[in-house]
Every structure is written in C-alpha cells, then in structure tokens.
C-alpha cells in the first residue's frame, strides 16, 4: 500500500515539476512533507525534504537543460526514511534519493525525446484540432506514468538497499545530519554566487548571517 501511495504521489508531483501548472508542490520541501504524511510520519519526511531542498536549491527547470528531478527523489528518500528509522537509513535514504534524482532527470530527457513523436507535426499541411488535443494530453499522461514508475522502482530498490546496509552505517544521528549539511553548504555557496557573488552582496549577506547566528542561538 505504501509503495502504491508513494508511486501515485510521485507521479502527481512529477507532473507539477514541468508539465502541469508548476505550482512547486514538487519542490523537496513540500514533497518531503507530503510523502512523510502519507507514510505516517510527516516530521521525518519533512526533515528529508529540508536536506534535499538545500541540496537542490540551485536545480531549476530551466528550458531544455537536464536537471535532477527533486520530486521523485524526495518521495523515494522520505518514504524510505520513514519506513526504516535510524541514522543509517537516513543517510542511505537521502543519498539514494539524490542519486535517483539524477536518474529521474535522465528519464525526463528521454520522455522529451519521445514527446517529439507524440506532439503534433507542424510539417503536416493541415492539422486537425483533435490531433493537437490528443497528442498533448497523451504526453501529459506519459509524464504521469513516468513519474509513477520512477518513484515506485526507486522506493522498492531503496528499501532493499537500506534494509541490507543501514545497520553498518558508522555515524550517529547528529553526525549524519552534520555530514549532509556539509554537502548542503556547497549549494548555499553556489546560490550566493548565482545571486551576484559575495563581493557584490557582502553587506546584506553578512547582515543576514548575523541575524541567522543570533536566531540560531536565541530561538
């Protein structure tokens, strides 16, 4: 039941990422909470979403670029982590999710190639409206099926990997989170660069940093 629920959620969120609406319920922050809620532990799912969100802060669905698919990756990671508590499962689940996100990105590109056959051909002398509507809606359906398959396969494989290896994870819970935050800090640096760089933004960045440090100490 969990596998089916997670797969359907993955399919729905995969649609939001590029095909339908782009309301950003496919971002890891939201996807993690929804997956955790479906699997019975929204807080753990959300924490997975937070870590993945920081990693994928700089991954946006720009044009034809290949980008890691955050939605399916987060559903896979959060569902796995909720099903297998403990730092080892967290580490392997999130790590697996990041890797699966790359695979998800590859399937998006493959589907876009396939869409070249599904979408209406403008070289045809006349194009009946029914052909446009059917081709377009079929492509939307294909994206949903792709999301379901990527998520379902990911949850199944991640479950096997985590069940087999999570007991051997050498770090405790806090150090595991520390390890992942080190990786996440790379994204924070990249995003600051994308926002204009430290040289140009140092005053407001340092202002925010001071507020953040104070908030971290006193809140």
């Amino acid at each position, binding site marked *: 039941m969990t596998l089916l629920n997670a797969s359907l959620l993955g399919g729905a969120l995969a649609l939001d990422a*590029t095909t*339908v*609406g*782009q*309301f*950003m*319920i496919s971002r890891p*922050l*939201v996807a993690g909470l929804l997956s955790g809620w479906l699997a019975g532990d929204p807080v753990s799912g959300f924490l997975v979403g*937070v870590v993945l969100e920081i990693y994928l802060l*700089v991954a*946006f669905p*720009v*044009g034809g670029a290949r980008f890691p698919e955050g939605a399916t990756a987060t559903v896979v990671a959060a569902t796995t982590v909720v099903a297998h508590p403990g730092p080892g499962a967290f580490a392997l689940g999130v*790590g697996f999710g990041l890797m699966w996100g790359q695979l998800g990105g590859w399937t998006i590109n493959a589907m*876009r*190639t396939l869409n*070249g056959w599904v*979408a*209406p*051909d*403008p070289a*045809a*002398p*006349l*194009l009946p*409206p029914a052909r*446009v509507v059917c*081709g*377009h809606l079929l*492509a*939307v359906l294909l994206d949903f099926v792709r999301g379901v398959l990527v998520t379902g396969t990911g949850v199944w494989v991640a479950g096997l990997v985590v069940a087999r*290896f999570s*007991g051997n*994870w*050498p770090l405790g819970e806090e150090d595991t989170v*520390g*390890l992942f*935050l080190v*990786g996440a*800090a*790379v994204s*924070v*640096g*990249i*995003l*600051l*660069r994308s926002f204009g760089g*430290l040289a140009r*933004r140092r005053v*407001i960045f*340092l*202002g*925010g*940093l001071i507020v*953040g*440090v104070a*908030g*971290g100490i006193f*809140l």
Partner: protein
Amino acid sequence: MTEISLSTRLSTFLRSFIIQGSWNYRTMIGGGFAFAILPVLRELFEGPRLDEAVRRHAEHFNAHPYLAGLALGATARLEADGAEPELMLRFKSAIKGPLGGMGDALMWAAWLPTTVLIGLVAHFAGASPWMCVLLFLIPYNAGHVALRLWGFGTGLRWGHDVGRVLRGAALGNLAELVSRGGVVLLGMLAGFLCVAGARGGPIELLWTTLMAVAFTAGLILGERAWRPAALLAVGTVVCVLMVAAR
C-alpha cells in the same frame, strides 16, 4: 477587429497552465501553444481554415512557461484582428527569446529560491513543517499566478505592441530587488546552519569548519563544485559498503 468572448479567454488562460505538457526537442512548447490557443481559433475559424491556423501555431516556440501567456494573449489578439500569418510568425520569433530570458531571471533565478529560503529559514527558526511549507507556497504562487494573469491580460490588450509594455515593466529591476531579499535570507540560513553545527563538542565544530570549506568551494567554483562533492559522496557510500561487506 473581433472581440474574444470571456469564456474563450478563460479557457485559453487555464490551458496555458499545461502549455509545457508536450515539451519536446523538435517544437519545444509549440504543441502546447497550439493546444492553449485552440479555443480562440475555434471561435474564429472553421473547417480547413481552422486546421491551417492550428498548424501554424504548432510550430517551434519556446518561452518561460509563466510568461508564455503574454505571447499567447498577444497572438490571440492578432488572430482576432485578422493579422497576416507571416506577421504572427515574425512576432512569435521575436518575442520568445526575451520571454525566456526575463522569466528565467525573475522566476527561476530569483523568486523561486527566495521563497524557498523563506520556508527553510522558518524551519530553522522553529516553525512547524506545515507552516514552513505554507510560508513558501503562498508567496511563491501569489507571484506566479499574478505574473501569469498580468502576462495574458497584457498580451490580449496590447497585441503586437506588447514588446513596448514588456520593456516598461522593468522585470529585470524586479529580479534584482528579489535577489537582494534572497541574499539576506541566504545569509540567515547560513547563520542557522553554522550555529546548528557549532553547538556542543569538538565533533560539531568540525562539521561547522567543513561546512565553511564547502560553502567557499560552492562560492568559488559554482556548479563545478558538485563534481568533487559528488566524488566525495560516492566515496562515502563505497566506504560504507566496504564496512558492510566485512
């Protein structure tokens, strides 16, 4: 000049939400553009003229999905005004580049990361998960839907002259302003992460130091920083598997 009915305008606007449905490397969002403008074409044409109109709008087109509505509205206006197909083709060719560039700069590079950062900072400040998600989704989609509405309405109103309005809208300045807010939030997130790592004993301080190194690598190397980071991650997984195999 033919007036487009309210129901047709509404239908076209709603269809613009799935304009990327058949995104492909041949026509990009051309198929989606034809799908979205179909209600307008059905109102204006019948028979072979309708098929011909649909065909010319299924040709290659690309734009930022939120701003594609501007081209959609303007093209609908041109169709209703009985403009020559050649003029519409030239108009769409001219406008797709600016719509893509402006949309990417404003929404993907500024608005999305900034609103995501609101949710992340709220989490580290102690807000509940549902509250964090709402603090991200509500402002993000307020901006998103407002931009779509503005784009479609402006396109419908101004038709071929929409480029002038686009220049006056100063979306670049808006992106710059949003980016500044994003930098403040990014600083706050970095501050929360530092404190989260530095609390407690020497191990945590080690993580803070490593975080500072990782942050600097990201800042200097940009996207290229992921290569060594990915190698490190793969190395960690390999170590765990080796330990597990013992």
